[in-house]
């Protein structure tokens, strides 16, 4: 039998994890990783946190040590772009005109920031944040800036707001809806985070969207809002979500929704083509509808689906079966989320808001389906376990912060 060849398109968490897992599960064939970016896979979460604040520099961002690629015989090809896939021929075409054959293809093409279609969005003072070069440009621009306007009260925008407040900038956040983080969190947590930002001196304006960004003669810009006023500031960060990079897959005829549709092994609708990472929509066993493919956009979902895809390539399929989890750091607040926010759950409160240490558990039919914790990592870790084991739990136990949830698992 000829040597099998796995080609990975992309160069971030999913790409790196597919390669690592394929090897861990015993794949002995060739692996090529083709990435548009100029650097090997690196960590993205710090870009809006410790990298931006200056606590962590570029040298500390790579996901793995340099020798990973040679040790694992991964042919890492940076700065190269795949332009099309031919699923019948099992090959792909690169921008430089060459053709690459594959036996397995893993699409780890990620996502791109959603653009805000308003005049002035392309001005030099306006930033989106996704890649290291985005972060480097933003960091340089913040040097000497006095006032930052963030458009979008989501995780990235709020993390950038927190860092910039700590760097001493004046910060204004515009949120088009009636609450920050509305799609991701129960209202109680959103309100707590909003109050925390306001206490730190951030001006958060709800029900307020940006209509236009104009440049002023002194080099500053003005964000014209839906309220009719204009916010004069030095720099603008737009964080209004991400769009999956699925064009290659769509053009090759793969089934796509918002994201490339896969099963819990990362298998797409096309034979021998897998997808993982922020471009992949897959059924999550712990969602309200466990059949519905969805985009989770988290490190956890990326790594766990990529691991499953790697196991499939190696011939030892281990389907995705993980409890979703996520984290965000803002000021001295560590937010940890376990499970998925559904919207139909009942909430149980545990802890002490004034001490900035509490959790909100989402309950559905006497089981925990989600948990949102502030500075309460034990609650978070125990919630992950409760969700995984689909255990019935007494509300009174959850509500009592003195009750150690760990004892629920002791026989």
């Amino acid at each position: 039998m000829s040597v099998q060849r796995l080609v990975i398109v992309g160069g971030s968490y999913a790409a790196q994890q597919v390669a690592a897992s394929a090897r861990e599960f015993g794949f002995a064939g060739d692996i090529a990783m083709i990435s548009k970016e100029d650097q090997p896979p690196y960590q993205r979460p710090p870009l809006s946190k410790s990298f931006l604040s200056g606590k962590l520099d570029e040298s500390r961002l790579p996901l793995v040590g340099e020798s990973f690629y040679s040790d694992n015989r991964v042919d890492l090809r940076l700065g190269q772009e795949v332009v099309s896939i031919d699923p019948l021929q099992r090959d792909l075409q690169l921008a430089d005109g060459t053709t690459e054959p594959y036996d397995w293809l893993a699409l780890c093409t990620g996502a791109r920031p959603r653009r805000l279609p308003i005049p002035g969005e392309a001005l030099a003072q306006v930033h989106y944040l996704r890649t290291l070069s985005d972060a480097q440009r933003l960091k340089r621009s913040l040097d000497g800036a006095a006032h930052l306007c963030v458009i979008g009260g989501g995780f990235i925008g709020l993390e950038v707001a927190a860092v910039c407040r700590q760097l001493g900038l004046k910060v204004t956040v515009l949120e088009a809806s009636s609450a920050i983080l509305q799609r991701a969190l129960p209202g109680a947590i959103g309100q707590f985070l909003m109050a925390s930002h306001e206490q730190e001196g951030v001006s958060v304006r709800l029900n307020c969207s940006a209509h236009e960004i104009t440049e002023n003669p002194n080099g500053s810009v003005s964000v014209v809002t839906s309220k009719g006023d204009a916010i004069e500031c030095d720099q603008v960060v737009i964080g209004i979500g991400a769009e999956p990079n699925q064009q290659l897959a769509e053009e090759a005829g793969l089934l796509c929704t918002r994201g490339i549709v896969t099963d819990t092994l990362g298998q797409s609708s096309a034979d021998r083509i897998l997808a993982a990472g922020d471009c992949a929509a897959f059924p999550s066993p712990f969602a309200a509808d466990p059949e519905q493919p969805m985009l989770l956009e988290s490190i956890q979902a990326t790594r766990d689906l990529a691991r499953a895809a790697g196991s499939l390539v190696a011939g030892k399929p281990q389907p995705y079966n993980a409890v979703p989890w996520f984290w965000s750091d803002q000021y001295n607040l560590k937010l940890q989320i376990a499970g998925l926010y559904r919207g139909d759950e009942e909430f149980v409160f545990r802890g002490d808001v004034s001490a900035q240490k509490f959790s909100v558990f989402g309950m559905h039919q006497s089981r925990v389906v989600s948990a949102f914790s502030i500075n309460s990592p034990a609650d978070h870790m125990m919630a992950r376990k409760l969700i995984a084991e689909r255990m019935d739990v007494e509300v009174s136990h959850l509500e009592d912060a003195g009750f150690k949830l760990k004892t629920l698992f002791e026989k």
Partner: protein
Amino acid sequence: MPKVTFKQLDGSAQTVEVKAGLSVMEAAIQNNISGIEAECGGSCSCATCHVYVSEADLARLEPADDLEDEMLDCTVSERQPGSRLSCQLTLTDEVSELTVTIPEAQV
């Protein structure tokens, strides 16, 4: 440069050098040491960089803060008196040599 020795349960050990200011977790990741997952990249959010530190070394390190202490209660491998999250252990010129043992499992 500070040195860290990673001991595996099978008795094998690997010593690596890293810049002062980096964490034990980063030393592991940069040198592809197996058994340190570090899913959250070092923000004390996942408890997958658990290590065991000897009692003598423990005394030289800054003690675990409340968040780390809570996370250590939730590690997959059993918490022992020398349990720490390696992302919270910073190598400095004072703490320039450290030996840690990697537990059986992280996830």
